[in-house]
């Protein structure tokens, strides 16, 4: 790790990119359900959610490019960085699995996002604040939808119960990273543009535990071994192939433009 000090601007860009990367990567994963949803209605719901997430990523990338001020466009961040430059949570890049796995992951992520955004909605930077408030409405819906499904699957049939319990057990190793925090967060907090994740850890845990209880699920061990490193670019084997698919077209036609 380099020992050079991080400027406020560097920290801001990294902070925005972490948020954006989470949303782009998870959005891409959720979009894989398009045309494959268990029923038509849920297919649409998942596609909507994927679009919301990619939309959030898009505006965060755009702002990161503006703050960076190096003449990059938002697409640069999505299409022209390699896996080790992505700082999304490993949780977000895992294959979509079955419907229970997708729902379990969404619930863990959306519940975390909800508390995080609730804290971030009062940041000093006006443009950042505006974005957070706009996204928060959709985050609330993602939480409502995924939580409802956790309850239905957990307290549903024996098979649905087993599937979602297994999904949470498998995902558990990745939840530790949600509350990772480093010098980027410290700088952002001191600037009034970030949030200290430890301030809502208890609230988040409580939401998880009460939901599990209602869904007749067993909360896995909070103290088990947890993965680390994604905010520094360390990823699972799944991110590379996914990025290859995501970036291939744009890299083959770098001058292509929507307009």
């Amino acid at each position, binding site marked *: 790790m380099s020992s050079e000090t991080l400027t406020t601007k560097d920290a801001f860009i990294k902070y925005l990119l972490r948020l954006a990367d989470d949303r782009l990567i998870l959005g891409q994963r959720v979009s894989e359900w398009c045309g494959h949803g268990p*029923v*038509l*209605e*849920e297919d*649409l*719901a998942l596609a*909507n959610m994927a679009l919301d997430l990619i939309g959030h990523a898009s505006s965060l990338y755009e702002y990161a490019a503006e703050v960076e001020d190096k003449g990059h466009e938002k697409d640069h961040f999505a299409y022209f960085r390699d896996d080790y430059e992505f700082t999304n949570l490993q949780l977000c890049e895992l294959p979509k699995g079955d419907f229970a796995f997708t729902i379990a992951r969404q619930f863990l992520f959306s519940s975390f996002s909800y508390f995080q955004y609730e804290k971030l909605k009062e940041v000093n930077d006006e443009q950042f604040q505006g974005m957070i408030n706009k996204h928060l409405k959709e985050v609330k*819906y993602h939480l*409502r*939808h995924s939580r*409802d499904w956790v309850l*239905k699957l957990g307290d549903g049939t024996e098979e649905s119960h087993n599937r979602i319990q297994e999904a949470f057990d498998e995902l558990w190793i990745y939840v530790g990273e949600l509350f990772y925090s480093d010098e980027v967060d410290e700088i952002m907090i001191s600037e009034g543009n970030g949030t200290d994740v430890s301030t809502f850890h208890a609230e988040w845990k409580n939401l998880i535990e009460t939901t599990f209880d209602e869904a007749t699920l067993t909360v896995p061990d909070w103290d088990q071994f947890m993965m680390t490193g994604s905010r520094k670019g360390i990823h699972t084997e799944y991110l590379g192939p996914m990025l290859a698919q995501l970036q291939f077209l744009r890299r083959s036609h770098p001058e292509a433009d929507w307009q």
Partner: protein
Amino acid sequence: MPENNEKDWPLWEVFYQPKNGKPYEHAGSLHAADAENALQNARDVYARRNEGIGIWVVPSDQITASTPEDMGSFFDPASDKPYRHPQFYSVPRAVKKRS
């Protein structure tokens, strides 16, 4: 009405209110496991393009409908009674403005 396969979710009718004060309009139908699920599905299927400000979902089997055979006795008697329509009255300008 087609009978539901037991494995399928029940059918719901979706109504939305386009604006405050306007009556709810029928949007269509969908399948859902329960009322909350129906409401969420209605949001995703029928309210994606700013269609309205309120949604009702009603189990389709709770709707009692007239049949095509009822048409004659229900609607024909009204067809030759134009005096039941209010178009022979002139509407004051103040009232017109509000509608």
